């Protein structure tokens, strides 16, 4: 989804002169862990632990990372469904971090969230009309021409039929339900949509329908997206910029091309090299960098660089000094003491099948 500011896909993304729509600074969310009869606090899940980024108007910023790294929590902080334990979220020039629900209500028109599960996010007892029209009622907005006709317009906008107005969610397929959810999100013409895994519960053929719909709506309505996803192929397809999270931190953020073609954080490199390529002639000869083991628990994350327990480049300093998120090239920020520089891209673009690929930097998971 090309931001208007970024121009066509081939031109280098010039830094837009516009003010960011949203700024997250030192954003943190720790969930207390309580045990025992007295529910004493015994620790904290450091779900999001100090992240900084900006979202520019009209762009798609994607947040990627493995399960439990804090993507959803970040999304809920941005939309103020959660209150941060530290740091701030400034939306459209206004600090919303600690706004009480009542003060937040008018802002709900501008900031909306699409949820992952198209099955549980729609009330099964309400008709499609009631569901999609709910934001008008909650906000007390009377659209010109009435709610019914506004809802029918929204249904056509997302590729459903206006006749679906009186039907119930269970009569629809997963992809159609996701469209219903998107129609509801669009009712009040929000500026920012935070979409949490909007296609991952859908079949591939349906995913493509919804991805195209989200792109069309962005072009048509000038929407800004924060997309949360773990599918790196989809993210590359839709994003202007990409942030990679690991255990509650952003480890790398930059333009799509920076992150995909010139990744600098070892975790990004490992993540990209693990994505299977749907081409039997190419995927198999590719060097894979296998990180060992699983993601550690966010209850007790490793000190300093959180990736050091799985990183093949880790040195003593990685275990003692936390690497700051630093700008390495314009707009490309990386948190690593020993970033990859100018190496070969993880995946050669459109090149003929590579022959003998380089030795993987680390080999198979150890068996001991």
């Amino acid at each position: 989804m090309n931001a208007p500011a970024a121009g066509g896909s081939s031109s280098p993304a010039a830094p837009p002169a516009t003010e960011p729509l949203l700024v997250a600074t030192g954003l943190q969310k720790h969930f207390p862990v309580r045990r025992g009869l007295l529910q004493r606090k015994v620790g904290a899940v450091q779900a999001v632990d100090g992240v900084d980024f900006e979202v520019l108007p009209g762009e798609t910023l994607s947040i990627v990372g493995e399960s439990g790294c804090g993507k959803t929590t970040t999304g809920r902080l941005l939309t103020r469904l959660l209150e941060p334990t530290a740091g701030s979220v400034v939306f459209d020039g206004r600090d919303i971090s600690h706004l009480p629900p009542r003060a937040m209500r008018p802002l709900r028109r501008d900031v909306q969230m699409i949820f992952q599960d198209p099955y549980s996010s729609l009330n099964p007892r309400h008709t499609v009309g009631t569901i999609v029209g709910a934001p008008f009622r909650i906000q007390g907005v009377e659209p010109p021409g009435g709610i019914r006709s506004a809802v029918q317009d929204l249904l056509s906008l997302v590729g459903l039929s206006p006749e679906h107005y009186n039907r119930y969610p269970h009569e629809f397929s997963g992809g159609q339900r996701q469209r219903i959810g998107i129609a509801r999100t669009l009712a009040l013409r929000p500026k920012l949509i935070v979409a949490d895994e909007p296609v991952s519960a859908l079949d591939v053929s349906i995913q493509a329908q919804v991805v195209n719909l989200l792109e069309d709506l962005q072009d048509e309505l000038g929407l800004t997206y924060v997309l949360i996803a773990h599918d790196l192929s989809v993210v590359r397809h839709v994003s202007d910029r990409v942030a990679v999270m690991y255990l509650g931190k952003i480890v790398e953020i930059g333009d799509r091309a920076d992150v995909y073609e010139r990744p600098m954080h070892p975790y990004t490199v490992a993540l990209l090299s693990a994505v299977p390529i749907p081409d039997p002639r190419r995927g198999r000869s590719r060097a894979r960098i296998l990180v060992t083991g699983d993601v550690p628990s966010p209850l007790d994350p490793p000190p300093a660089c959180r990736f050091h327990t799985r990183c093949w480049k880790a040195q003593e300093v990685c275990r003692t000094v936390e690497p700051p998120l630093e700008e390495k090239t314009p707009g490309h920020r990386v948190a690593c003491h020993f970033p990859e520089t100018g190496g070969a891209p993880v995946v050669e673009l459109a090149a003929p099948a590579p022959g003998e690929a380089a030795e993987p930097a680390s080999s198979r998971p150890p068996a001991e």
Partner: protein
Amino acid sequence: MAEDVLAGAPESGPAPRPSGSGRPFLDVRDLRVHFPTDDGVVKAVDGLSFSVERGKRLGIVGESGSGKSVTSLSIMGLHKRGSARISGEIWLGDDELVAADPERVRRLRGETMAMIFQDPLSAMHPYYTVGDQIMEAYRLHNDVSRRAARKRAVELLDRVGIPRADARVDDYPHHFSGGMRQRAMIAMALSCNPQLLIADEPTTALDVTVQAQILDLIVDLQAEFHTAVVIITHDLGVVAELADDILVMYAGRAAESGPAVDVFTEPRHPYTWGLLGSVPRWDRERSERLLPISGSPPSLINVPPGCAFHPRCPYADRNGDRSRTERPELVEVGPRHLAACHMGLEERATLFHDEIRPKL
């Protein structure tokens, strides 16, 4: 790690099947699995044939509800008697499983064939330790002492990459992370050196870095033990990296099948084209738009007549009425490469080269 950890089981190794039938190791012929329900008969699998040799990997792809899991459960003999009507033939070596005595199938399960499920938690018992469950699976088919079984459980966990296996063997499944549980389930499935391993969405619940580890593990073990592997997934990337052959399923039948390279580079079924157009290719220049398939998969109670794909197929009008009335049979479109479509083969080849491939 010991070279022959898994060979510790009695009767093992890549010894060729004694049968002289010339039949592939796993040979499924015209399989039908129908479930009578209150709403009508669910034709989950409706005339499916495929085969896998030992040492080979078959990837089955298709959207949810296309009958992939029902197929694998049929092979394993895991459908509830009475609820499913199964016909056709499933040959595993010299045994035909559909008509076989359930006791015989039960023996083969674990000894000759084993399965890995998408969700390891649902396949493991929460109140028994991981080690106990592997030991039980092993002792069911091998008359050995608890001590010997425990030793083997530790060896297996070690082989599948569980760190400190001798300590972790006493953990409960919920102490393991998702990736470790999947490894433990693989260890359990491998306890008796099965000659056929069916993996139903083995990595769908896992993160990509862990998925890569598990896929590598399956490939390593398969090469080591010359197993026939059926890997079921909706992820085209996974089959592309893993499978020798590919079977594309749609509405309980094969739309296309053949060597992986041919199915990916010279696909001859419009549904396969649709699948390929639906996934963004991040190893290529970024395309402006994806090419989705319109509509959604059919209900298997009311499978569309003729070609089940016709309501979603952009070419359904090209064949007179045939796409709507006559079911296309699987026919050869290349060496070992089959597709079920009424459109002329030349026409499909031209369409693919001129219109589909440039946009992928």
